[in-house]
């Protein structure tokens, strides 16, 4: 396989009630990525994009084809990926494969979502479609409910009193807002306190409002190119070092591992093995913090802490810039926002900027970062991991 690089990216502001359509948002992010890569739309040979709920939020399916036409990539093969919140990362992994294989030299990958147009009730219904519809949705399970049950299980399995666990989880949200405040693309740009987190209304016990990411609108896109092409177009190509993806069944069927998500351990091992790297080699990580507890669960499976111990990373500030493993320096899904079809592309966009050293002006550069890890979870059943590396 050939080496593949990301050579440019684009990112809209993540927000509530965007005045733009999902296609408009992705078209802007895409044109930004293409322009920054010193390319024209005619140079793009294929498009890969994540979009989850356009059918429900805008009555718009098949966004990939209309996006291609909108930005002037006439008649290129365009594919839509659906893996709930991991859709865009799936799209990027496939885009990588097509360039690595030698079939294409330059492709566009990204994602878009306009979730807030649905309102909270329909959004809650549609997000619940990413749990088992036949055997689990009849119980009224929803997106926060999955992680709420994992939080209680985490407390029970690792013998951490719930009150103590909730105080630790509050620190996760507080850190996300601290960095989100510095990210101009973030949906929330305000600091919060532990007390505010613990005072919020309960969404699904034990998770309170500020334990939960918001519904969001937004898009992000990236241009991928083969190494030889990349070197001609940019002096800072960021390379794919390893990729992984795995799937799993309904939540109840994962009982042997919960609160661990086995698929994540399978996926990230693929990425580490392919890259020839270990958790200690990662300089900066964007992981899937859809809920505060999700950050702890992810950090453990990615190899940054022993099982049941990830809370200590946040308690000791090891997840901040200057810590052992800086995590979600973008503000994460919690503060930056979580337009589900775009989230993976947004995570990659931020890691690419970290590895290029582009975040000094925003006050959130991890100094000297050379290797970054992306972790995206879809529903209770899809995980994608990407390891990116600066030369």
């Amino acid at each position, binding site marked *: 396989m050939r080496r593949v690089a990301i050579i440019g990216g684009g990112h809209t502001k993540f927000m509530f009630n965007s005045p733009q359509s999902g296609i408009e948002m992705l078209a802007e992010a895409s044109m930004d990525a293409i322009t920054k890569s010193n390319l024209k739309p005619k140079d793009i040979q294929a498009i890969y994009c994540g979009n989850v709920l356009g059918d429900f939020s805008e009555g718009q399916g098949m966004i990939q084809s209309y996006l291609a036409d909108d930005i002037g990539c006439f008649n290129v093969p365009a594919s839509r990926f659906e893996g709930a919140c991991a859709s865009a990362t799936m799209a990027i992994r496939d885009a990588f494969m097509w360039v690595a294989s030698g079939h294409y030299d330059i492709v566009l990958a990204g994602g878009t979502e306009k979730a807030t147009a649905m309102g*909270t009730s329909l959004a809650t219904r549609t997000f619940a479609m990413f749990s088992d519809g036949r*055997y689990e949705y009849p119980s*009224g399970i929803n997106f926060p409910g999955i992680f*709420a*049950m994992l939080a209680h299980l985490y407390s029970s399995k690792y013998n951490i009193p719930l009150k103590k666990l909730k105080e630790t989880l509050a620190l996760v949200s507080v850190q996300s807002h601290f960095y989100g405040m510095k990210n101009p693309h973030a949906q929330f740009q305000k600091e919060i306190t532990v007390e505010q987190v613990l005072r919020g209304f309960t*969404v699904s016990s034990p*998770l309170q409002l500020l334990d939960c990411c918001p519904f969001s609108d937004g898009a992000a896109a990236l241009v991928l190119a083969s190494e030889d092409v990349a070197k001609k177009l940019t002096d800072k190509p960021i390379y794919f070092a390893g990729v992984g993806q795995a799937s799993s069944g309904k939540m109840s069927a994962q009982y042997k591992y919960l609160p661990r998500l086995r698929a994540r351990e399978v996926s990230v091992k693929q990425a580490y093995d392919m890259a020839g790297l270990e958790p200690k080699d990662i300089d900066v990580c964007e992981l899937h913090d859809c809920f505060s507890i999700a950050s702890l669960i992810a950090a453990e499976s990615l190899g940054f802490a022993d099982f049941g111990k990830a809370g200590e990373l946040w308690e000791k500030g090891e997840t901040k810039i200057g810590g052992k493993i800086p995590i979600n320096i973008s503000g994460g899904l919690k503060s930056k926002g979580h337009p589900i079809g775009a989230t993976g592309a947004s995570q990659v966009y931020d890691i690419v900027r970290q590895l290029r050293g582009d975040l000094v002006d925003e006050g959130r550069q991890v100094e000297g970062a050379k290797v970054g890890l992306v972790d995206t979870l879809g529903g209770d059943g899809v995980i994608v991991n990407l390891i990116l590396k600066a030369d």
Partner: protein
Amino acid sequence: MAFKIEYKLSHKAYYDALKKGKLLGLKCKDCATVTCPPKMTCQECTGTNLDITELSGKGKIATFTTSYVAPLGREVEAPYTIVLVELEEGPWIMGNLIDIDPAKVGMELIGRKVKFGFKVFPGDLYSAGEGVRPLFSFAD
């Protein structure tokens, strides 16, 4: 000899049994693992040498949540308590917990013994018909 691939226990057959107060699962003739809710293959060894088996419907609460935000069309149900129950035969299944104030549940629920009943979810625009969920109540 013609061989037809088919589900040993479809979701409809599982629902029909639930509505008669019977919780069915699949017992693997090769490795003895019980799979519930049903799938095409044994969840342990992936074999298809499966027998339909009636489960006791008894188990203990593994985890829980009380949800205060309900999906479209189910707002009147909130707040409601969802549980994952470890059945005596091994597998975990999801259901609702009754006989308790949903606002007053806490960690003491974990490990409580429960027994199974059922309730029909009439379905909505997106569910392709009705669903049936286990409804657990305390057995201790």
